């Protein structure tokens, strides 16, 4: 992945976004709304002023983590559809630990709660990694199943053990010292985004500069060659899935400790799944996860204000998001398809 590749990929994504917005405009117009009003609200809602920007950042933060989690697993050739479940166990674990440690100094409390959330996500990631390494169970199937289990289990745990005495199924509010501090006072932008960017930097180093990352890439791109090169394919598979799970777990931790200040069952609007789209757009680069997450965060926050001030249903924005995914993912899927075809024709042609 040279710089040139990154730049052309970026240009391609920009064109895809413009195209999606263009088709979105046609749809909005056809539905009888004013395109100008819609898009000016979208833009202002996403980037116009401190409040809008803050909303965009808040909406991007969980996507940054889940996108990073999925993108990292991609490097090992693994498709982690389980970020959603990992996010739930991370969120609940962090909330519970942050509450339980209220005797400790705040900094320590926050760090340990984050670590616990990451650990819980990693533990959940271990399962599909292990099943893949030992019996070849496909991670897409196992992670989807684990999503159901994780979401139901966290809900049950809240109801059975950690419930706030009030009328709603949720944990009690975190005391201020157990929360991720606000980064910009008066907004909900917390230190979480900084943690996210640090995570990106760290995983970028791992992928591009470490023996572990090198081996993970080798396993992801050609497990036979990795094995030939003395790489323990099974161990790397498990580790990659655990790291991915840890990062997705952090998405939940940061949501619980920095935005919601508690754990609420079913709080996620599908961050784990949108993270897949973020990762597809980011491609092979960890850093590219940041703009990709911001793109979706902005569509989300801008879409909300479009709904609020121009009365345009959110569904239209969801559709634009879908189009972005479609256009950006098309070449990836295309080359995957082409790759398969090339391979099969090589096989047919024998050696030559």
């Amino acid at each position, binding site marked *: 992945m040279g710089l040139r590749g990154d730049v052309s990929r970026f240009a391609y994504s920009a064109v895809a976004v413009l195209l999606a917005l263009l088709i979105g405009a046609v749809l909005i117009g056809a539905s009888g709304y004013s395109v100008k009003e819609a898009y000016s609200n979208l833009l202002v809602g996403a980037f116009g002023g401190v409040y809008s920007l803050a909303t965009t950042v808040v909406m991007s933060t969980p996507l940054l983590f889940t996108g990073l989690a999925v993108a990292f697993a991609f490097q090992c050739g693994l498709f982690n559809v389980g970020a959603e479940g990992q996010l739930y166990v991370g969120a609940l674990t962090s909330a519970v630990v942050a509450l339980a440690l209220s005797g400790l100094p705040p900094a320590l409390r926050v760090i340990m709660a984050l670590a616990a959330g990451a650990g819980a996500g990693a533990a959940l990631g271990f399962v599909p990694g292990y099943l893949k390494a030992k019996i070849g169970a496909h991670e897409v199937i196992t992670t989807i199943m684990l999503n159901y289990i994780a979401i139901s289990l966290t809900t049950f745990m809240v109801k059975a053990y950690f419930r706030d005495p009030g009328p709603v199924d949720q944990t009690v509010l975190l005391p201020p010292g157990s929360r991720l501090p606000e980064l910009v006072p008066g907004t909900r932008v917390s230190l979480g985004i900084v943690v996210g960017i640090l995570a990106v930097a760290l995983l970028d180093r791992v992928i591009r500069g470490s023996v572990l990352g090198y081996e993970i890439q080798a396993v992801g791109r050609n497990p036979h060659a990795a*094995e*030939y090169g003395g790489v*323990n394919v099974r161990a790397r598979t498990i580790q990659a899935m655990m790291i991915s799970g840890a990062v997705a777990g952090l998405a939940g931790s940061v949501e619980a400790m920095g935005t919601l200040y508690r754990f609420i069952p079913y709080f996620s609007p599908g961050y784990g799944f949108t993270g897949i789209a973020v990762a597809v757009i980011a491609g092979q680069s960890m850093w590219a996860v940041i703009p990709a997450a911001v793109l979706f965060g902005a569509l989300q926050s801008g879409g909300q204000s479009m709904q609020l001030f121009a009365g345009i249903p959110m569904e239209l924005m969801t559709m634009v998001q879908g189009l972005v995914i479609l256009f950006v993912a098309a070449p990836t899927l295309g080359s995957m398809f082409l790759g398969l075809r090339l391979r099969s024709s090589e096989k047919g*042609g024998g*050696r030559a």
Partner: protein
Amino acid sequence: MYAVRMENITKCFGNVVANDGVRFAALPGEIHCLLGENGAGKSTLMRILFGLYRADSGSIYVNEQLANIAGPRDAISLGIGMVHQHFMLAERLTVAENIVAGCEPRRNGLLDYDRARRQIREVSERYGLAVDPNAVIEEISVGQQQRVEIIKALMRGARVLILDEPTAVLTPPEVDELFAVMRALRESGTTIVFITHKLKETMEISDRVTVLRDGKTIGTIDTSDATPDSLVEMMVGRSLPVHDDQRMPPGEVVLLELKDVSVAGRKGSRARLDGVSLAVRSGEVLGIAGVDGNGQLELEEVVTGLRRPSKGRIMLIGKDVTGLDTGRIKDRGVAYIPSDRLKRGMVDSLSLARNSVLGVHRCADFSRRGALLENAVREHAQTIVAKYDVRAESIDQPMGSLSGGNQQKMLVGRELARPHSIVIAAQPTRGLDVGATHYIREQILSSRNTGKAVLLISAELDEVLELSDRIAVIYEGRIVDVRPASQFTERELGLLMTGQRNEV
């Protein structure tokens, strides 16, 4: 009078000049070899003749008439047929269906398959092209598929038959059969253009040779006036040095030993390897001769830890390594050139630099406390590129973007750069051009000359003969004979390889 004549053919793809003012002319009823390294422009020239590409300039004469060939249909109607490097058959249809596709014989508007089958039988009997018209393509061997392509061309009235590297996909006995067919066709007056980059085949089968290099015609000569050396010089533009024979005498120390090793077959079928015992000493090359598919792959996998033997022991430098994985075995001093370089030997989407340390990336030279030493890795890649003359734009380009020969040089360079006392070389020059082949063989010999033990597994009999000190013949998973190379004749080896033990 020539059957076909091409004058001043030029063809560019973007800024690649594939053919640059090429002249080519074939006489009626001759086997004319079109010789050249990979990328010399042979396929392009013949695709122009067959109407698949349009030349940018130049003219084509068929029977000395200026021909305007705008597509394969024109070529076919002028009596030109072509068998491509990659076959163009419908996998799920039968032989007969494939042959008649596009020129179906009809009776009362319906397909007349009986007539088609009859015609196919006729042609196949006349030239010794045995195929079953009712067999489904995907179930017959590559050699048979090739025959189908040939019959197809002949049934469309080909008087000039182009065969694009037909031997690349064949086993040695199949090559002999093909050559017999080609001779029969020549008898009947068919002109054959035989594309190859193999000297031995050229010398054996052709009447005349035209050599292409870098898209230009170097010359056309009678095969009887050519020697392998003169042809090499025409092909690569320089003569290749003779292998340097400064060598240590073979030692007595056994570095690699197999003791009664077997690999069970699938349930009910015979063992893939059956009680194989071999010993390779320091300073010698032990070559495994055999027709592909007689246990070579299993042998390779078993000695390198990619597969566990069902019986027997494998010893490296006196230590039992049976059951260790590939990484551990290589760490005990094995350089391993795998037969399937794309599958095993490299990660094609990673850079040359990254690939240059695959398998040694954990050494102290290339990593410290879990971090890759980027500069050391790059330097290592540069060294291999320079020393092995790898043609690459940069060490940052993906391995998959190199040509096969350059990939293989990179891979051989990497393996021979790691600390080792044993070399396992499986099909080390498969699919490579003459220059790269020669270079890699030289490297293997120089490894031997410095006292390494080399196990060479190759389907190319020439290669085994050229490099080996001793030869072991493998047939149906058994070693049927081991002797010093000088004690075998080629004929003997051929018979042993095909299981005709008693006739030796």
